[in-house]
Structure formats: C-alpha cells, structure tokens
C-alpha cells in the first residue's frame, strides 16, 4: 500500500522525440482539416435547404481562396488517412480463402479501387456523362 512506484517524467513534447511518434501525431492531426470539411458540408446542407439564392451564395463561398486552401488540405489529409487506414486492414483482419491468406497488397488495392468507384459513381450522379457529350 505504501510503496511509491517510480513514475518516469512525461513532458507534453514527448511526441517530437521519435519519427514514429511524429508520424502518429501527423495522422491524428488529419482530423483538423476534416473538421473544416464537415463544417463546409453542414453549411452546404443548410444553404441547400434555404433555397436557390442561398445555394448560389454557398457555391461562390466555396470559391474563395482560403476556403479552397482549407478544403484542399482536407482532401490531402483524407488521402493520407486513407493510406494509413487501408494498410491496417490486412493486419487487423486478414482474409482467408481456403487455406491461403489474401496478400496484403491485394486488400490494399481493393480498398483504393473502392475510393475510385465512389469517385466515378458521384461523377455519374452529378451528370458527368451528359456534361461531356
């Protein structure tokens, strides 16, 4: 009861001391631009509900340089997050076909194919085919 275990000091700057820790913090920081992305969508959802005039105002807001900069950062952050998330999947949940384990590169590629599929589907929903005929 009375023993005093040694507690090593842990300064708040611990994560600066090793490349792996800095990488971890960079990945955690991807949610900061993501919050701006979420705020942009929330504003868009509100504007879309208010009528055509406010939706057009929203579209011009999206074209302001600082909004473009932050949304570009959110895009890069989401791709970086995707990369770290996709390589984890084969490690956390290896898939077996019979006695063979699916190779990690195949599972990672399949997930990137999913990202591409979502992109193409949204492009099609936005009339991408009609616009380029």
């Amino acid at each position, binding site marked *: 009861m009375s023993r005093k275990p040694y507690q090593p000091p842990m300064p708040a700057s611990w994560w600066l001391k090793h490349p792996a820790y800095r990488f971890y913090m960079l990945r*955690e920081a991807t949610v900061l631009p993501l919050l701006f*992305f979420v705020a942009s969508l929330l504003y868009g*959802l509100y504007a879309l509900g208010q009528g*055509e005039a406010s939706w057009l105002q929203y579209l011009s807001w999206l074209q302001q340089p600082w909004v473009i900069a932050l949304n570009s950062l959110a895009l890069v952050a989401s791709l970086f997050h995707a990369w770290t998330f996709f390589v984890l999947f084969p490690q956390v949940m290896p898939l077996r076909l019979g006695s063979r384990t699916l190779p990690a590169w195949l599972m990672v590629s399949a997930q990137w194919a999913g*990202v591409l599929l979502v992109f193409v589907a949204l492009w099609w929903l936005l009339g991408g085919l009609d616009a380029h005929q």
Partner: protein
Amino acid sequence: MRTNKQDTPQTTPRRSDEPIWWSLFSAGGVCVAMLVPAIALLVLLGIPLGLVSAEQLSYQRLHALVFHPLGLGVVLGALVLPLFHAMHRIHHGLHDLKLAHGQLAKWLCYGSAIVLSTVAIALWLLSAF
C-alpha cells in the same frame, strides 16, 4: 484508467461506454477514407479544379440528390460518422498533448459531435419532408 481506491474488488463492475466511441470512430474512419476524397474533389473543389461545371452543381440537381430518401445515408456517412471520428481523435489528442483529460474533455468532445449531428439530421429532415 479507472482505479479502485479501496484496493477491494468492486462487486458490480461498471459497463464501459468506450466500445460505442471506438465503433463510431472506426466506422467514421472507413467513411472518411472512402467518401471524403470524392466529395471534396467533385463538390467542394469541383468548380475551382474545373472537374464539374456550375450547372452540374445546380440547386435542382443537388436538392434532388441530397434530399432523396437515400440522401440520409450520405449525411450519416459523409458528415455524422466523420464528425465522431474527428472528435474521438481530438479527445485522445488532447490527452496525448497533456492539454486536457478526464470526464469534462470527454463529454465536450463527444457532446459537440452529438449536438452537430443532431443539427445535421434535423436540417435534412426539415428539407426532405
């Protein structure tokens, strides 16, 4: 970490709420990776990048798409789950950076995610019906 001050085992262990937050974080992580790049490229950055025209993002088209019954799934996948994902990482990041820890920081993080999600779902319901 919850520690027992009396050094005696509790007779009724408290059920942890952590699985809820970790599940939402994980589901949000999948949505961020799968949905955010396409929405950021085509909707938020579509016109500046020249990938879509202003006509493709017209009020009529977006209103029909977003407030379609399946649009609620998009609101959940692109907005609500990523929000819980972000606030979970911020909650743990505040602890990692020794800025804040404990129940107040936890409930401010998850509470803001709950409030903003409710606002998003309410906005969708008001326009869809």
